[in-house]
C-alpha cells in the first residue's frame, strides 16, 4: 500500500502505483463469461500515456475538463489516468441518465473533451441540442469498422508518439466534478479536490486494506463516487486488481465470484436483497436433515463471530456457501441507500460481513462505516478516521441533523455559491439527514430533514421532480412531499411520497379527480409513484411570485393533519 501522505494529487499517486507493481494485474475485463482484456500495471501505463500525449497535443492542459460517459470498463480507467496525468479535471457522467440530462450536465460542466462509448455516443449525437453543446473534442470508444463518426475521433487511434508531460496539481486543486443524482433541474456539481480523494482513500484502505492478488468486482457505475474510490483509486494505490463485467445480470455476477475469486464488491441494497432471496430459496429447497444441519452451522458461526469476523473459521464452517462466492470474499460493501438490519444480519451470520456505511458525494463518498468490531446491524458505523461528525441542534433524544467536517468534504458546488452556502455552514457539511450518535460513537440514521427519498437502487427522488405528471389535475392546487418530511417517522425504510391536493371549491375530492390521480400515478416509474394523497382544504402559502412556500405548507400540514389521514393508493 502506498503511503498517500506523500502525494499531492491523484496523478502522482496513480503514477507511483503503476511504477511500484509493474507485473501485477490491475484490470480484468470480462464480457459475460468471455475474458476480453487483462492488463498489468505496466500495460495499463503503456495504454494510458500515448492517450495523455495526444490529449496534450490537442491543447488539453492544466485544469482542462474532460467528461467520461461510459459503462464500467478498462477504457474508463485508462482515460481517467490520462486526464489526471495531464493535470486535468475529470467529469464522470452517469451513463444511466436520460440523454437529455447527460447533455445538460455536459454543458453545465463546460468539459472541452468528451470520452464516450459508441452506443451512448450514437444516441447522444441524435439528441436534440447535441450540435450546440458538444465539446470541442469527442473521443468514441469501440466504434465499429466503417462507422461514420461525424467529426468525433476514435479513442483507439487517438495516440501521441512522444512521451507526455506529467502535470502536477496541488492538494487543494479540483480533481473531479461529480454530479449527485436527482438534480431537480438544478445541476449539483460537487467539486472534489485531490486532497478529498487522497484522504478518503487513506482512511478507507486503513480499515479495509487492498493488496496485490486481491480482486475487487466493480459493478456500481464507476461515475459514482463509491466505485471511483473502491473500484479504482483504492486498488490502484495498493497493487490490487479490478474486475469489470460489462453486464449487471445476477447470473454473471455469481459466476464472476467463483471465476475470479473476488475479495470485495460494493452493491446497492436492492442487489443485496436479490442475493439474499436467492440464498434463502436455495436453503429452503434443501432436504430437511441438511437444512437443520445448515441452521446449526449458522448458529455456531454466529457464536464464533460474536466479537469480530473470523473469515477462516466461517469459510470452514459454511464451506458450500462460501464456495458459491468464490471462497475468498472478505466483505461486501453496501452503499447508495439505506439497508435493512435483517439483511445485514443474514449475511453476517453466514460469515460474509457487509460493510454498511453512510455517505454522500458532497462528503467524498463515505462518512461512517461499520468496522465489525463488533458487527452491528443497527447502525451505519463510526466516522472514518479524520472525519468529524456532529449532530446539529439535537432534541431531547439526541436526534438532529448530521453535520460533517474534515478533509474529505467537497470544496463547493460548481458555479452555485448560493447552494454551497446553504450546504456548507461554518465549515460543516449539512447532510439533511437526521441521526444520533450512541455512547460507542456509532451513528444511527433516523430519517431525513430534507424533502426527498432514496430508493433501494440508490436513486435520490426529489418530490418536486414528479409533480409534472399531475399538471392539469382538476384541483385548485397540489404539491408532492416525502411522507417522512411531513411526519417524521424516525426511519429510512419504506419511504413514501404523498400528494397533497386542495380540491376546487374546497371540501371533499370528487371520485373523478381521485381516479385521475391514480391513473396519472400509474404513468410514473414504479419507484417514483406516490403512495397516497392527502386532501387539504386551505390555500397553500405562496411567495410574491406565486411559488408554493413548501416549508411553510409542510409545517401547517404537520400541525393540522396526521399520516393516517392519507388516502392510500
Amino acid at each position: 500500500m502506498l503511503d498517500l501522505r506523500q502525494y499531492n494529487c491523484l496523478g502522482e499517486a496513480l503514477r507511483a502505483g503503476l511504477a511500484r507493481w509493474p507485473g501485477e494485474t490491475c484490470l480484468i475485463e470480462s464480457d459475460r463469461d468471455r475474458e476480453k482484456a487483462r492488463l498489468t500495471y505496466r500495460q495499463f501505463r503503456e495504454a494510458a500515456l500515448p492517450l495523455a500525449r495526444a490529449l496534450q497535443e490537442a491543447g488539453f492542459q492544466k485544469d482542462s475538463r474532460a467528461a467520461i460517459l461510459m459503462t464500467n470498463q478498462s477504457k474508463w480507467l485508462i482515460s481517467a489516468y490520462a486526464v489526471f496525468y495531464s493535470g486535468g479535471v475529470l467529469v464522470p457522467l452517469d451513463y444511466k441518465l436520460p440523454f437529455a440530462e447527460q447533455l445538460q450536465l455536459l454543458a453545465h460542466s463546460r468539459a472541452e473533451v468528451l470520452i464516450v462509448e459508441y452506443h451512448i455516443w450514437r444516441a447522444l449525437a441524435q439528441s436534440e441540442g447535441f450540435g450546440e453543446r458538444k465539446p470541442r473534442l469527442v473521443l468514441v470508444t469501440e466504434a465499429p469498422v466503417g462507422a461514420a463518426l461525424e467529426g468525433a475521433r476514435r479513442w483507439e487511434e487517438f495516440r501521441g508518439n512522444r512521451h507526455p508531460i506529467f502535470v502536477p496539481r496541488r492538494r487543494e486543486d479540483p480533481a473531479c466534478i461529480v454530479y449527485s443524482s436527482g438534480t431537480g433541474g438544478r445541476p449539483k456539481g460537487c467539486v472534489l479536490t485531490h486532497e478529498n480523494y487522497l484522504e478518503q482513500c487513506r482512511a478507507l484502505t486503513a480499515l479495509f486494506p487492498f493488496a496485490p492478488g486481491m480482486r475487487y468486482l466493480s459493478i456500481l457505475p464507476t461515475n459514482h463516487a463509491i466505485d471511483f474510490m473502491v473500484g479504482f483509486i483504492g486498488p490502484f494505490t495498493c497493487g490490487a486488481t479490478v474486475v469489470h463485467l460489462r453486464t449487471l445480470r445476477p447470473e454473471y455476477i455469481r459466476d464472476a465470484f467463483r471465476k475470479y475469486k473476488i475479495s470485495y464488491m460494493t452493491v446497492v441494497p436492492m442487489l443485496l436483497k436479490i442475493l439474499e432471496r436467492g440464498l434463502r430459496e436455495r436453503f429452503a429447497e434443501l432436504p430437511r436433515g441438511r437444512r437443520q444441519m445448515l441452521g446449526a452451522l449458522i448458529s455456531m458461526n454466529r457464536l464464533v463471530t460474536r466479537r469480530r469476523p473470523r473469515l477462516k473459521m466461517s469459510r470452514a464452517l459454511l464451506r458450500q456457501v462460501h464456495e458459491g462466492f468464490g471462497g475468498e470474499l472478505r466483505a461486501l460493501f453496501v452503499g447508495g441507500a439505506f439497508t435493512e438490519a435483517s439483511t445485514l444480519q443474514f449475511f453476517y451470520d453466514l460469515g460474509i460481513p457487509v460493510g454498511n456505511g453512510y455517505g454522500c458525494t458532497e462528503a467524498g463518498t463515505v462518512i461512517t462505516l461499520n468496522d465489525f468490531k463488533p458487527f452491528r446491524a443497527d447502525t451505519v458505523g463510526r466516522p472514518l478516521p479524520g472525519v468529524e461528525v456532529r449532530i446539529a441542534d439535537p432534541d431531547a433524544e439526541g436526534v438532529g441533523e448530521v453535520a460533517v467536517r474534515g478533509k474529505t468534504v467537497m470544496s463547493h458546488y460548481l458555479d452555485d455559491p448560493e447552494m454551497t452556502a446553504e450546504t456548507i455552514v461554518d465549515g460543516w457539511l449539512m447532510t439533511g439527514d437526521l441521526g444520533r450518535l450512541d455512547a460507542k460513537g456509532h451513528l444511527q440514521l433516523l430519517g431525513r430533514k430534507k424533502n426527498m427519498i432514496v430508493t433501494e437502487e440508490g436513486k435520490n427522488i426529489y418530490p418536486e421532480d414528479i409533480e409534472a405528471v399531475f399538471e392539469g389535475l382538476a384541483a385548485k392546487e397540489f404539491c408532492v412531499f416525502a411522507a417522512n418530511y411531513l411526519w417524521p417517522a424516525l426511519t429510512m425504510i419504506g419511504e413514501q411520497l404523498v400528494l397533497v391536493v386542495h380540491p376546487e371549491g374546497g371540501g371533499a375530492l370528487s371520485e373523478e379527480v381521485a381516479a385521475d390521480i391514480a391513473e396519472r400515478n400509474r404513468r410514473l416509474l414504479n419507484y417514483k409513484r406516490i403512495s397516497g394523497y392527502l386532501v387539504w382544504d386551505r390555500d397553500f402559502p405562496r411567495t410574491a411570485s406565486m411559488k408554493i412556500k413548501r416549508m411553510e405548507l409542510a409545517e401547517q400540514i404537520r400541525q393540522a393533519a396526521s399520516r393516517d389521514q392519507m388516502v392510500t393508493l
Partner: protein
Amino acid sequence: MPTLDATIEEILNLAAEHFHVPRESLQPGDDFFQKLGINSLQALGLLTRLEQHFGIELPDYELQGVSDFRTLAERIQSRL
C-alpha cells in the same frame, strides 16, 4: 426472419409468462417498467429470457433509453 409484428407478439407472450401477468394486459406500446412495476435488474432478467428464446445476444446497453415493448422488439429484430 419473422416480421416485426411477429417478434413483438413473441416478446409480449414471453414477458407475460416471465412476470406472471395475463397476456391480454400487455400492449406493444406499453412502458414495461410502469406496466409491470419492475426495476432495471428485473428488466435485465427479461432480456436474458429473450436471448434464450431468440438465440441471440443482447448487451445490457440495448435497454438503455428503451422502455416500451415495440422499441425493444426493433432492437431485437435488428440482431436476428
